[in-house]
């Protein structure tokens, strides 16, 4: 009851804040607009939507519920995650392999859920690693990262990882232009020598497996964000650019000189056809493709040695530039596919281009010059309208499916709701503070679920109890079901969310997997019954085939290990019961623990350095006898003759 009261008080405070800006909203009674009621998901009840927030520099993806703002899980993607052993276990280390070797971290930015016919289908979610360019695919029935492909010839993989409306491609554009292929050259020769690559990675419709189909080598601009065409504009992809000045130093100033940069419109269907007919140039490359197999619970790395590059000038009609004011950031396409929105981050206005007008201008060949041979369309010819919002620093726009758009304004810290077609501003609400991206579930698809918008902020300051100089970033949830937006909740996130993707719970929840089937476990070191448990020595490598069930390890006494050995604990969790993981940790191990799900096998390496009898134990409170779930390994001197033996209950 106390907690309940406290909740009401907290929500009450929010309500007060909200109601200040709501005085002219007389149609709703005081009770109907209670923010507390709107976000309160009672104990035992579940949220309406899943929200996947990127972790930014955490390298991971976090899963929240809407409207409660409760965090359900952190899915390790690009970063080692000691909680589960991801990136530490022998099975998952290959996931983080790159052409630069093992890279245990990345900057995860823009998640996007797979689509069929432009609607969310909830099979996979993709996310980009910004720093060492990579794209990951996460299975949305296991909520585990299944695949990571490195993107060659890219640097700062930022205009990624957005998918086409039937998940034909996941698209990854470079932020930094670089020499392609990489070579030793003076930095100040950037101009006209560096290139920007836009990569189209095909997605196998059945397994989701990714393959870098072709790479478009564009002029050396910075490709900031992108989105697919949909509906009538399906087959096109749109990328915002900045630094069309091609500055290589002090970009803060030097890349902000042009009055207009571009949105690059790429007709990928045309390029796909060109490539399918043998077009393009194969270029030697070296990039990692890491694939996790659910059956063997093991990831493998394949180094790919070639990439198919496409010179845009060789495919007439494939690429056009749409002039767009002031270093646009977000590049967003409305649910109908008609409007392409450039969020000119250094201006006050939003520029909206019309797809129909763009096609007409292309057909009329009304060009306003060219850039490196790529035709530039006339700004006035493609312009659908401008949103004079009065805000500052528009960054990103999403849609509610009811003819409205919602744009974040970083500098003026607000979300602005405006109407597609009339460009009139309907409402504006402050954010706390300096909002980056926002998310409406399905807001980047043909069918948005326009009930909530989540604004993800860059600055937290005084929103929560202070926690020293470093704080988590804040996010706010607004109810957008009415004419006016209503701030209903404020919650801290994890890492730095740069973007998010949301989906109705009813699509994902029913297919969320509960266990892995032990009888389908194909791990080469799995043990299917405890009687198969064994310890095998191979030179100085020792393989321990171990099983776990509440509440013991089999075997739990092991002798004959020697200093200098490399000991592999291959642990199979024999539980077939929902939510009964077992953990494993060995004293002095130079790695993380393991968390092994029912039916799964994971492997941990230990290189004992000291003679003695050393314990291991289960790290997950698995049962009433969890504390008893422990064992010993006897470590003898390197030259000893202690016989290898193992047992349980002897």
């Amino acid at each position: 009851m106390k907690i309940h009261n406290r909740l009401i008080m907290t929500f009450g405070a929010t309500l007060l804040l909200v109601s200040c800006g709501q005085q002219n909203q007389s149609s709703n009674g005081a009770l109907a607009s209670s923010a507390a009621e709107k976000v309160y998901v009672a104990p035992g009840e579940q949220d309406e939507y899943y929200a996947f927030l990127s972790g930014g520099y955490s390298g991971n993806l976090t899963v929240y519920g809407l409207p409660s703002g409760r965090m359900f899980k952190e899915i390790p993607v690009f970063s080692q995650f000691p909680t589960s052993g991801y990136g530490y276990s022998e099975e998952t280390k290959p996931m983080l392999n790159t052409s630069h070797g093992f890279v245990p971290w990345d900057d995860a930015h823009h998640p996007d859920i797979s689509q069929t016919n432009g609607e969310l289908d909830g099979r996979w979610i993709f996310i980009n690693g910004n720093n060492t360019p990579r794209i990951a695919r996460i299975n949305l029935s296991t909520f585990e990262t299944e695949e990571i492909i490195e993107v060659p010839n890219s640097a700062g993989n930022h205009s990624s990882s957005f998918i086409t409306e039937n998940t034909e491609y996941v698209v990854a554009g470079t932020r930094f232009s670089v020499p392609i292929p990489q070579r030793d050259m003076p930095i100040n020769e950037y101009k006209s020598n560096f290139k920007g690559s836009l990569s189209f990675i095909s997605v196998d419709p059945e397994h989701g497996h990714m393959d870098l189909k072709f790479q478009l080598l564009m002029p050396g601009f910075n490709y900031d964000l992108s989105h697919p065409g949909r509906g009538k504009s399906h087959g096109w992809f749109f990328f915002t650019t900045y630094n069309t000045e091609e500055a290589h130093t002090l970009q803060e100033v030097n890349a902000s000189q042009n009055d207009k940069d571009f949105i690059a419109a790429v007709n990928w269907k045309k390029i796909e056809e060109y490539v399918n007919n043998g077009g393009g140039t194969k270029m030697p490359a070296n990039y990692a493709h890491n694939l996790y197999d659910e059956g063997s619970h093991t990831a493998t790395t394949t180094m790919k040695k070639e990439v198919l590059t496409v010179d845009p000038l060789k495919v007439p009609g494939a690429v056009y530039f749409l002039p767009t004011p002031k270093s646009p950031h977000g590049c967003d396409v409305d649910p109908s596919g008609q409007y392409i929105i450039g969020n000119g981050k250094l201006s006050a206005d939003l520029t909206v281009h019309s797809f129909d007008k763009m096609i007409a201008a292309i057909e009329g060949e009304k060009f306003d010059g060219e850039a490196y041979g790529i035709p530039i369309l006339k700004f006035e010819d493609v312009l659908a309208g401008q949103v004079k919002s009065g805000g500052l620093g528009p960054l990103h726009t999403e849609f509610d499916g009811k003819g409205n758009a919602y744009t974040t304004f970083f500098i003026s810290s607000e979300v602005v709701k405006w109407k597609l077609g009339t460009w009139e501003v309907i409402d504006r609400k402050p954010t706390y503070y300096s909002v980056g991206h926002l998310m409406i579930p399905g807001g980047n698809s043909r069918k948005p679920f326009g009930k909530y918008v989540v604004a993800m902020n860059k600055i937290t300051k005084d929103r929560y109890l202070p926690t020293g100089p470093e704080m988590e970033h804040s996010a706010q949830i607004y109810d957008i079901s009415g004419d006016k937006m209503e701030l209903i909740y404020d919650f801290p996130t994890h890492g730095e969310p740069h973007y998010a993707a949301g989906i109705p719970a009813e699509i994902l929840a029913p297919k969320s997997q509960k266990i892995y089937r032990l009888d389908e476990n194909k791990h080469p070191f799995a043990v299917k019954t405890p009687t198969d448990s064994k310890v095998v020595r191979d030179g100085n490598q020792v393989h321990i085939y171990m099983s776990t069930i509440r509440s013991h390890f089999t075997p739990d006494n092991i002798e004959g290990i020697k200093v200098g050995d490399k000991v592999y604990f291959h642990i199979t969790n024999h539980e077939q019961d929902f939510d009964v993981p077992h953990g494993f940790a060995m004293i002095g191990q130079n790695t993380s623990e393991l968390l092994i799900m029912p039916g799964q096998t994971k492997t941990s390496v230990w290189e004992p350095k000291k003679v003695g009898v050393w314990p291991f134990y289960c790290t997950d409170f698995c049962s009433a006898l969890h504390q008893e779930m422990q064992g010993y390994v006897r470590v003898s001197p390197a030259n000893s003759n202690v016989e290898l033996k193992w047992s349980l209950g002897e």
Partner: protein
Amino acid sequence: MKKASIVMIVGPLFLLGLYIFPLWNIMLGAPQYPDPLGLNIHISGLKGVNEFDIQNIDGLNHYIGMHTLPKPEEMWEFGTFPLIIGIMVGIGVLIGILGYLNKVSYKWFWGWFLLMSVLGILGMYDFNEWLIDYGTNLDPNAIMKLTNPDGSPMTYKPPLLGHVKMLNFDVTSLPSIGGYLMFVGMMLTLFAGFLGWKSSKQ
């Protein structure tokens, strides 16, 4: 008598449902099992309501020293019950046909009902004996040896019918589809006898 005999032929056929559907069902729910574990008792063996329920019930019960649930080959009943049901269905249908041909009287219908009732009661008695053994014949080295307030060792016999709170589990034992079908079938034979008796009065 013809109508009565047709009902008598149909009634025993309902028992064939026992070959497909469980006779009885025991559900075990607990706070940490919001989706309860469940045991379906078929005449030919025990099955989990969900695929891994038996394994999970055994896993939990080992803490309190209960034996694992028997496999079909570990109990003679699971070999014998299907035979008895088969024979009884055969006899019942035969009686019905003979009644239709006016070879036997309605009293045979009641006779079949009586015999089936006796067998059913014996079956329930046997089932209860097993429940007692299952719930009380505990491993002396059990991890948890619990006692009642009076100091006697706690036992874990699931109820034959109804609900019992056992440690953290709510155990509910009820007839299942096969059991209900059997009940309907037997009532039909009783009704067939009644119809026969009525037509003999005319």
